[in-house]
């Protein structure tokens, strides 16, 4: 068995009486898409923040490539190769599309403290940025202001920025949210391609996408993982059906 690239071990996090993470363990192995699903308020966002940084677990550890990162800051984890996309697009809206991507490259290359060279004329950056934009299909929008992009285009840009980091693992928070059927389908295909480059921990509400993409699924309910398994196993799990899927199907 291959070594997991990301390991979460027995993570606890409470806000007052609310146990948002109640002994969560999971891992992400090279080459896979591991989907994390669960009803609203199950503690997905809290868990993501403990993995990506921003929240420190009360107890338990997060390891990345065998190294404990539980105490590291967001940017330190990013520099280690943890690429994250956000639930709601977190882009610098006043920037052009290209500037957002170059910002990612500046961060990735660790060349923040360069004061004189015009960064938007750096050929190495431009080449990589245009390459990333092309991969997500935004090559014609490089000079567009990000605020003027459609919702779907912003999600594409999110992924493009994540790509520039050349991450060792992706952490994607509802990348399909707000995309139409067409957009979801395109992104599904793209993620399938992407997982060969780096495994993806995918938090997603769109069940069609999850079932189409995931190699493994973990179900989070009230801060606990109640089941982990293949698509078929999860579909068949009565506990999951009771706690989550039945509910979801009614809504759908």
């Amino acid at each position, binding site marked *: 068995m291959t070594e997991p690239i990301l390991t979460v071990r027995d993570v606890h996090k409470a806000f007052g009486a609310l146990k948002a993470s109640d002994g969560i363990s999971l891992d992400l192995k090279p080459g896979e898409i591991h989907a994390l699903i669960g009803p609203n308020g199950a503690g997905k966002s809290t868990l993501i923040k403990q993995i990506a940084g921003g929240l420190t677990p009360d107890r338990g550890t997060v390891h990345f490539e065998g190294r404990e990162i539980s105490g590291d800051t967001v940017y330190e984890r*990013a*520099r280690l190769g943890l690429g994250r996309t956000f639930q709601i697009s977190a*882009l610098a809206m006043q920037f052009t599309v290209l500037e957002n991507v170059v910002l990612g490259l*500046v961060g990735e290359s660790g060349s923040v*403290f360069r004061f*004189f*060279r015009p*960064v938007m004329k750096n050929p190495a950056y431009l080449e990589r940025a245009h390459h990333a934009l092309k991969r997500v299909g935004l090559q014609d929008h490089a000079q567009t202001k990000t605020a003027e992009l459609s919702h779907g285009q912003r999600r594409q840009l999110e992924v493009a920025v994540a790509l520039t980091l050349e991450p060792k693992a992706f952490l994607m928070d509802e990348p399909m949210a707000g995309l139409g059927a067409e957009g979801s389908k395109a992104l599904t295909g793209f993620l399938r391609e992407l997982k060969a480059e780096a495994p993806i921990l995918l938090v997603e509400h769109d069940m069609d996408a999850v079932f189409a993409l995931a190699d493994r699924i973990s179900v989070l309910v009230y801060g606990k993982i109640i089941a982990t398994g293949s698509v078929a196993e999860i579909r068949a799990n009565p506990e999951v059906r009771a706690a989550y899927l039945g509910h979801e199907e009614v809504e759908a």
Partner: protein
Amino acid sequence: MLRETHLNGLLMLALLIVPLAALALNEPFIITLATKVTILALAGVGLNLALGQGGLISFGHAIFFGLGGYSMGILASHAQSFTPLMEVPFLIEGTKLMPVIWIVAIAVSCLAALLVGLLSLRTSGVYFIMVTLAFGQMFYYFAISWPAYGGEDGLVIFVRNEFPGLNTLVPIQFFGLCFAVLCAVLFFVSKLNKSAFGLALSGAHFNAERAETVGIDITRVRLVAFVISAGITGLAGALFADLNRFVSPTMFSWHTSGQIMIFIILGGVARLYGPIAGAAVYIILEHYLGAFSDYWQIYLGLILLFVVLFAQGGLIGGLSKREAAHD
């Protein structure tokens, strides 16, 4: 309507021509006013780097303006009285040489900004505004009650400091010097804005979470920006003290911080040349409204309110609208 770059060019040209015309017409006070505009604009350019580009609303930049002023005052007063600044552990003499004073002013301001920044940047948003304001008050009270350098009386320097090759006592020559400094700083800041650092700083401003997730240590970026910004404002403080041949704790007061912010808003936030337009308008208003009414500050307040509420983008934004629309 004009393109913003043309407008900026015109602005700098006007700032240069007005004092030259005043020289020809023998109106030396106009030259003094233009020098004041130049120096205050420089302070604004400094703050604008932190405030406009970096989104760090510092209400304490008077600290650096004042430190720059006192760097000049202390060095020059020791030179004037021929007493060394300190003898132990090594001898430091006062000086009347502007380049040396400038370097000291920048260094002292940067050092103070490093300390103030380390503490203040632990906070953000409103906390940052209030914390910087409170640090400003701390320096202000210190300056007032510290007797060694005049306390509230401040320090009078009888003769303006020297710059090799110039007679700084001649108003137009001193203006030229300040104008050259302003141009050099504008060049430096425009380079900075376009650099990787400038992008990271704006990125941290527009979306801090994003900047962090691409691996940028935003606190360090902000700290460096705060320090550079303070250095520029400190340099302006040293020049301002030389313009008046005088320093006092007023330079540290929170009104000074507010005034520098007003230049930026009047001119247009995050526009490189904004503080120049803002400082010019402010000085003109102060000069002519003051003659018009004892209660001129009411009018100043109303004009300011109008700009903040209805004319975002300030003067430069307002006068160069068309370009923005074509963008």
